[in-house]
């Protein structure tokens, strides 16, 4: 199913990219020949799929290395950032939404709504700059840039520094890496936190009008449990898809935050290859990110099936 879905994504991209108007014609014509772009799209597509199935994304014109090697080098840093942000989004955003819905139309609700609306009202790079100025320069609580202090050397195993440091048993390095990731991850997470909280609130407010919540209240179920379980869980069914999309959007927004915090992730590579019109690398990067995007969506679908018994049972039956 996944492969089918990925294959569905591809036809648009290489074709669209190949058809784009070209800057310096001679250069590009040569480049086209080298990349077989002068051949019919169907042939290109066939070759591309064949290569893809062998795990070959071609060679980057920018680094002169296989695109897969480049991506393997830069991806973990981006993923680590996105995952930490995703955790922040869920751990901060959902409780805020629940709080807001439970005390709807009170001052708590208004405050949460105002703050979360502010959160979604600025792109991640603006938050990155503001947070950096506030908490790295004026109040030097956090480091300004990078993933870990230069003095530390960590053997790369997974590429995820927070995992590698733990594998190495180096707690000092782990906390150093964690300390570095806080600001960029929070900057990246802010709009997601806002979205998640707003969505959770609006769906829960709707759920609060359902008869089964009135039933729970008239039987005196504790308000905390109604908010945290009986109203929250049904509300998550419509929210989860969108929260998944927001999480996946972080893969793109990570580019913005990485640029500000000099985070050595996919961003610099991605922007560099885009500016150099390095087709193989662009396609590779987009492909990888789309694959991540799809994986996130599959996970979300599984989660929805987990919390929604209706889906669980209809699937078991079929």
């Amino acid at each position, binding site marked *: 199913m996944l492969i089918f879905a990925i294959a569905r994504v591809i036809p648009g991209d290489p074709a669209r990219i190949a058809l784009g108007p070209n800057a310096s014609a001679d250069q590009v014509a040569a480049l086209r020949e080298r990349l077989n772009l002068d051949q019919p799209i169907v042939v290109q597509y066939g070759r591309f799929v064949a290569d893809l199935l062998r795990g070959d994304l071609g060679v980057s014109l920018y680094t002169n290395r296989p695109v897969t090697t480049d991506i393997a080098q830069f991806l973990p840093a981006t993923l680590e950032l996105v995952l930490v942000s995703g955790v922040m989004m869920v751990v901060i955003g959902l409780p805020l939404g629940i709080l807001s819905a439970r005390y709807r139309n009170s001052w708590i609700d208004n405050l949460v709504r105002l703050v979360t609306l502010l959160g979604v009202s600025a792109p991640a790079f603006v938050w990155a700059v503001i947070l950096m100025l506030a908490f790295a320069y004026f109040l030097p609580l956090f480091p300004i840039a990078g993933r870990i202090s230069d003095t530390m050397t960590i053997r790369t195993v997974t590429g995820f520094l927070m995992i590698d440091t733990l594998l190495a048993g180096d707690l000092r390095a782990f906390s150093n890496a964690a300390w570095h990731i806080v600001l960029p991850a929070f900057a990246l997470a802010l709009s997601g936190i806002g979205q998640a909280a707003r969505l959770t609130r609006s769906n829960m407010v709707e759920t609060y009008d*359902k*008869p*089964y919540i*009135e*039933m*729970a*209240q*008239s*039987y*005196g*179920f504790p308000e905390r*449990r109604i908010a945290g*379980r*009986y109203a929250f*869980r*049904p509300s998550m*069914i419509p929210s989860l898809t969108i929260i998944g999309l927001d999480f996946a959007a972080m893969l793109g927004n990570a580019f913005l935050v990485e640029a500000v915090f000099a985070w050595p992730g996919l961003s610099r590579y991605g922007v560099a290859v885009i500016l150099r019109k390095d087709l193989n690398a662009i396609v590779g990067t987009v492909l990888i990110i789309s694959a991540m995007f799809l994986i996130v969506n599959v996970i979300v679908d599984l989660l929805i099936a987990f*919390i*929604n*018994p*209706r889906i669980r*049972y209809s699937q078991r039956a079929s």
Partner: protein
Amino acid sequence: MTAPTLLIRDLRLGFRGYSGLIEVLHGISLHIARGERVALVGESGSGKSVTARIVLGLLQNLKSARISGLVAFEGRDLSRLSGRERHALRGTRMSMIFQDPTSSLNPVYTIATQFHEVLKRAEPGLDLAGARRRAAAALADVAIGEPERVLDSYSFQLSGGMNQRVMIAMALANEPSLLIADEPGTALDVTVQAQTLGLMRDLVARHGTSVLFISHNLGVVREFADRVYVIYKGRIAEQGPTAALFEDPRHPYTRALLSAVPRITGGGIPDIEDASEEYFAPLVVHEGFGEPEGVPA
């Protein structure tokens, strides 16, 4: 004389909205003695359901609601209780059955989980296994043949009649002294509704539970209730024993209601067109069925 299970005297309710205070209840009085089944009958919007919610203490926390008058439950004035004390009564001493049983059960939790939550109201430390045993017994009481299967089901997997029985079992599980039934089973078809109501009547009779039965269905009321209060636009129009009220309706509104009902099927009240000034005529009380005097402790 022991205090009645429920005593309401001169209850008024208004909602503060954009256009000032909107009065919903204009001072209604009613009482329910122990083990008595009392019906509150009226068209939609007449104030039946808000009365039930005030008794349960659900409207008291609403900022826009203005409530005055006495609501005493087992001799205790609810307005003198703290929010916490009112909360403690819900689900233990009083419980409620709703209009649409299927949508009143949470769609993402099994019946067992919800039953567990209900039983924990009376017995906070109860574990899941213990709850299942008690729940299975309660379900058997409402003539459910396979309680174990039902416990592991979700509301959407069960029929409306089955859900209604589950609701009745839950409502009576903690042996409340007052059961409020708000248009029970209106969403079900007529035969199923009749079956479950029969079941409910037998159970409350066995447990000695008092019932406040809210309905717009006169046929059902006639079958179920000992006494009837007819409510019209936030005022009680007529009150009396069921048989007397149906045979000798004295208030113009009650008469209009009864003549509007298709006799044979005894279906719901069609909204009576042309609200008449007559309907605001003063309260009619059938002899010997007035409100009790005196103030509860």
